[in-house]
């Protein structure tokens, strides 16, 4: 009995780091978010120039299509993250 609990405690101690938050994905997500914001900003600038007659409509359409895809990616990623979080919350402890 005592040995078992010792083994369990050791196993817990070994597996503990696996559940600790990993700092590296946070950096990747922050970078993705800043890329996303930059893409939005670029499209905004292109749209402004195009509406004032400066840029050609092709550049505007390209920028808008890319931003649309970026927004869809961001929303899908957010949905996935929220889904995973709710899955964890629903987990019986």
């Amino acid at each position, binding site marked *: 009995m005592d040995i078992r609990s010792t083994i369990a405690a050791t196993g817990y101690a070994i597996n503990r780091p696996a559940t600790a938050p990993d700092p590296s994905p946070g950096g990747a997500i922050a970078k993705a978010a800043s890329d996303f914001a930059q893409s939005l900003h670029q499209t905004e600038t292109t749209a402004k120039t195009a509406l004032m007659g400066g840029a*050609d409509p*092709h*550049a505007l*359409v*390209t920028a808008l*299509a*890319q931003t649309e*895809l970026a927004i*869809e*990616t961001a929303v*899908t*990623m957010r*949905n*996935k993250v929220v889904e995973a979080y709710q899955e964890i919350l629903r987990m019986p402890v």
Partner: protein
Amino acid sequence: MNDFARASVISASGMQAQADRLRHVSENIANADTPGYHRKTVSFQSVVERGRASGEVTSGPVRLDQSALAQIYDPGHPMADETGHYAGSNVDLVIEIADAREAQRSYDANLKLFDQSRQMSRALLELLRR
């Protein structure tokens, strides 16, 4: 930039080049009756970025068609010489219309490819939603 974004940028450069070509065709047609007008032709060239061809296309420098100008007989014209002829333009409307139609077809092809790359990247994202 990923491949899909690059493909759409390249297609957009093709559309831009064809739009430029159409602009020169309309200039030629508008000046078909201008005396002494040489028709403009547009050449295409690939874009080079940092020593490498980026795959994009751009319209190159405008060149003037140096074929002989049409001699039009009109003794009452202020520019007519002693034989009653003056130099018109060398614009042939049939050639210009064929050029415009070619520009349209090429534009359509680029547009289709733009749509195609967008659809493909969207289909890839659809996988994430399931």
